[in-house]
């Protein structure tokens, strides 16, 4: 089965985005800026790989009346599965972790993740379900994702959504989204206003 095009999957989300805080990292930090330029976007580069959901959780706890979306990768998610438990233990309801799953470390050139090298598929959604996420979904086709995204995002969180995507395949190296001090200052200014 053909998986989703990465940017097409993100466009579905972009069309539904209103005033959410959006944290991107790794591959999503390269692709999301192609379709979004919002003061509440923070491209978490340079990052500590695996920590984007934790960063998002901190923001969600600080802004409980605002939704926070984290656009994570599957390699990064595998580095910090315990964070799924931390999210639930924190009591935060306003966090959604999206995992763009392509089973490779795309920004380093496409090496397989440990999970990607297995013959049996690792069920990241299963980890989230086991941790206690009340809303868990996995989408493999763009039609399904497009059809269900809006209703899924109306459900009370926290939410965990796996989007099975094709590798971008070219232009995979991470580009700088610009100087960090300016990006950080702009993001903090936007946060102060919400």
């Amino acid at each position, binding site marked *: 089965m053909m998986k989703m095009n990465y940017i097409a999957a993100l466009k579905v989300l972009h069309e539904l985005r209103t005033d959410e805080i959006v944290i991107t990292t790794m591959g999503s930090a390269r692709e999301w800026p192609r379709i979004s330029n919002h003061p509440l976007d923070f491209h978490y580069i340079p990052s*500590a790989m695996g920590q*984007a959901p934790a960063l998002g959780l901190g923001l969600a706890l600080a802004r409980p009346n605002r939704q926070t979306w984290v656009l994570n990768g599957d390699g990064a998610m595998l580095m910090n599965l315990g964070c799924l438990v931390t999210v639930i233990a924190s009591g935060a309801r306003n966090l959604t972790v999206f995992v763009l799953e392509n089973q490779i470390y795309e920004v380093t050139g496409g090496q397989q993740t440990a999970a990607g090298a297995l013959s049996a598929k690792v069920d990241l959604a299963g980890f989230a379900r086991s941790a206690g996420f009340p809303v868990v979904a996995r989408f493999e086709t763009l039609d399904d994702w497009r059809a269900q995204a809006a209703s899924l995002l109306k459900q009370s969180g926290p939410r965990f959504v796996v989007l099975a995507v094709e590798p971008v395949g070219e232009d995979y190296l991470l580009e700088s989204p610009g100087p960090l001090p300016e990006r950080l200052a702009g993001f903090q200014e936007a946060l102060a206003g919400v």
Partner: protein
Amino acid sequence: MEYPAEQVVSQLQALAVTHVVWLPDSAMGPWETAFEHSTTFKLVRVCREGEAWAIAAGLHLAGCRPLVMIQNTGLFESGDAMRNVLFDLKLPLAAVIGYRSYLVSGSTDTARQFTEPVLDAWGLDYAIVRSSQELPTISRHLSACRNGGKPGVVLIAEGRM
């Protein structure tokens, strides 16, 4: 060595801490009930220490005053997350870190041996609390670091491995 929970809480209140992001060790463990019942800050439990730094970063960016509370073994574990938030993002976060085996005479605990050299290598400004009488060092040192716009660490001397 035991440190009275109510004194620790009053130190955190003096700092106007909003969130304690923690993975406790045996010296901090007895503070849990007091932290849970605090009306001035929220306790956030993590599964691994690296998460604590990133969660604290998110809280700080949104205007809160988080405090990371972990053991020195967790300091070692969380190096990349700490590097990122303190030196890439340049956030002046505060941490209280359990100093395992500091009070054990002749200890060969490597967690003890490496703690201060590692903090020195990172260039982090730290102070050591060696007894409950020295607990006011927490608010004094971390306030000074905050006012200086830099990260700060307070090490809590412990006597058990």
